[in-house]
């Protein structure tokens, strides 16, 4: 029937995997927000994770950081950091791991700065919580970090309200760099900012990544941003990864109808203007997800025509299959047609 290889899809990179998610499942009560996700992040790469609100992308970040709040819990699978499973580690082990290996910049993190504390002191706090370093040394390092993200080092003495939104977001990124992590998770770091600031911050992250060699898990609903800045992209829908590929390949050869729909939701800035349709309908209720392919109720290629394909679409869950090196797609159409 099919000559395609079954998942997991290995990316074409020879760098070792830093983080591996294996059949990760996260539940909030009866809702399975993440359902059987396999995902690898390699040293020094930017992995973009995209999908609509509620698809589970932020939940993945929280699971990696082990900061799920009840009723959220890991219902199954493994989170391997350099081969070491984080699920089930003690609170103290996790605390050390979080800052020394991974740091996270949250959505609207610029509001996470303490308004009554000077910027420099917030660096000192973060560093001294995790490292033995004196205050003067920490402040000096804070100045260097600010300079790295393009802020005048004298701003260590500023209070957050004296900085613009874009500058506060850079401060947060600088604090995230303070302990020289191997992985930085950026969750919609630029969504609240306008395009000019957004581009400046993304360029800065790219440059810092080149200098420091950390890996980035970049979470956003804006696929167009990922197409430009990510090395690889994983698209999530209703708790599952439904397509993953190098960014260039997603741009020219997206195979999943949902990915295609996302890409077609952006009106172009130049060239002919056509009427766009977006993706009709809304994402499913995860307490009661659709049977078979979770995208089938919104899929333009799923018609109740009594065919065998329709039967599979509505009853059988598609698995991620490799259609090209490093390019995986979970869709019955792809299975049907072959690579």
């Amino acid at each position, binding site marked *: 029937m099919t000559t395609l290889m079954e998942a997991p899809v290995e990316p074409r990179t020879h760098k070792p995997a830093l983080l591996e998610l294996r059949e990760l499942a996260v539940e909030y009560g009866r809702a399975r927000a993440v359902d059987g996700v396999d995902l690898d992040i390699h040293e020094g790469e930017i992995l973009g994770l995209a999908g609509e609100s509620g698809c589970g992308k932020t939940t993945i970040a929280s699971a990696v950081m082990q900061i799920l709040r009840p009723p959220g819990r890991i219902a199954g699978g493994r989170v391997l950091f350099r081969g070491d499973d984080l699920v089930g580690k003690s609170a103290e082990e996790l605390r050390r791991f979080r800052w020394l290996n991974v740091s996270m910049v949250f959505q609207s993190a610029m509001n996470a700065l303490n308004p009554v504390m000077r910027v420099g002191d917030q660096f000192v706090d973060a560093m001294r919580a995790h490292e033995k370093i004196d205050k003067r040394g920490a402040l000096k390092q804070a100045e260097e970090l600010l300079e790295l993200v393009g802020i005048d080092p004298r701003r260590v003495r500023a209070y957050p309200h004296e900085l*613009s939104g874009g500058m506060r977001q850079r401060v947060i990124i600088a604090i995230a760099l303070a302990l020289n992590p191997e992985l930085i998770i950026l969750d919609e770091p630029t969504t609240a900012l306008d*395009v000019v600031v957004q581009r*400046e911050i993304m360029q800065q992250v790219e440059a810092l990544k080149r200098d420091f060699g950390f890996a980035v898990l970049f979470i956003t609903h804006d696929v167009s941003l990922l197409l430009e800045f990510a090395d690889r992209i994983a698209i999530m829908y209703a708790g599952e990864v439904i397509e993953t590929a190098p960014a260039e390949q997603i741009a020219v050869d997206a195979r999943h109808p949902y990915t295609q729909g996302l890409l077609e939701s952006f009106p*172009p800035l130049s060239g002919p203007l056509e*009427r766009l349709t977006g993706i009709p309908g*809304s994402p499913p209720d995860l307490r009661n997800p659709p049977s078979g392919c979770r995208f089938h109720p919104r899929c333009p290629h799923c018609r109740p025509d009594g065919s065998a394909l329709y039967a599979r679409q509505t009853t059988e869950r598609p698995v991620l299959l490799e259609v090209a090196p490093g390019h995986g797609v979970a869709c019955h159409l792809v299975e049907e047609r072959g690579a």
Partner: protein
Amino acid sequence: MSAVAPLEVRGLTKHFSRVHAVDDVSFELRPGTITALVGESGSGKSTVARLLARLHDPTSGSVLWEGSDVSRVRRRRDVVRYRSEVQLIFQDPFDSLNPVKTVRHHIERPLRIHRMVPSGGVEERVHELLRTVGLVPPHEIAAKYPHELSGGQRQRVSLARVLAVEPKVILADEPTSMLDVSIRIGILNLMTRLKREQDIAFLFVTHDLASARYVADDLLVMYAGQIVERGPVEEVLASPLHPYTRLLLAAVPDPSNRLRAERIEERRGVAAAAVDPPEGCRFVSRCPIAVDVCSQVTPGLVEARPEHSARCHVTAPDPERTT
């Protein structure tokens, strides 16, 4: 270009103490036309919408509604009448709906307050409005509470509520920026349909140039409280005059950038609203093409091409000035 402008803004200015949020802004909104107002956060674009909605009093300048100045009307009867014709929708459909009231309640209220239909016809009109904004089946949707709806559906309820009073002008302040990209297009298509079918004049405030191009006829670009460029949207985006418009265009994510590896210049200076702005162009500290005069003389809005104007000494020089 159609008909008389029902809403005309002349020299509109709003200062919040030392902050010049809006300075000398003029434009008109015409029936069946979408005018996009773009700019970054703090540029004053939302303040313009709020001045037009009579949520603030202007410091100076006027808002002419069918020829008479409404910018300072205070009598409740006059304000209500104006608001029945000029309606505002907000960015956040989560904040603007009452969580303990049904969709029906939200749409019935303006129908009753403005006595739009006889009370026997309210139910039918609510359903009709819900169908207009694509919320079907209307009787099911009408019974729902805001938390039972998605973001896109809530923004459609906001639109239905605004349409209830049959306005001539809709001021839409970032109506899609809180919505998922896949849902934005639906709202933009709906705006286009309402403009065509009901001849509504829209002011579409956004920071997204691509959305502006997709729906708008005319484009206004705002920077630090001033309109720095205006003209037909295709013309402005295809051949922008003002360096700020060029910067905005270059900043939009573009997959082909990977290949070109083009990088925008690091900003020098801050874009925030103008605090006690000195004489001169407000963009000068970030401008790659500034000349001496730019920091000495404030450029006026000059029509450098037919219907296409910009505030720039270099790309749209004032023929009356000789330097």
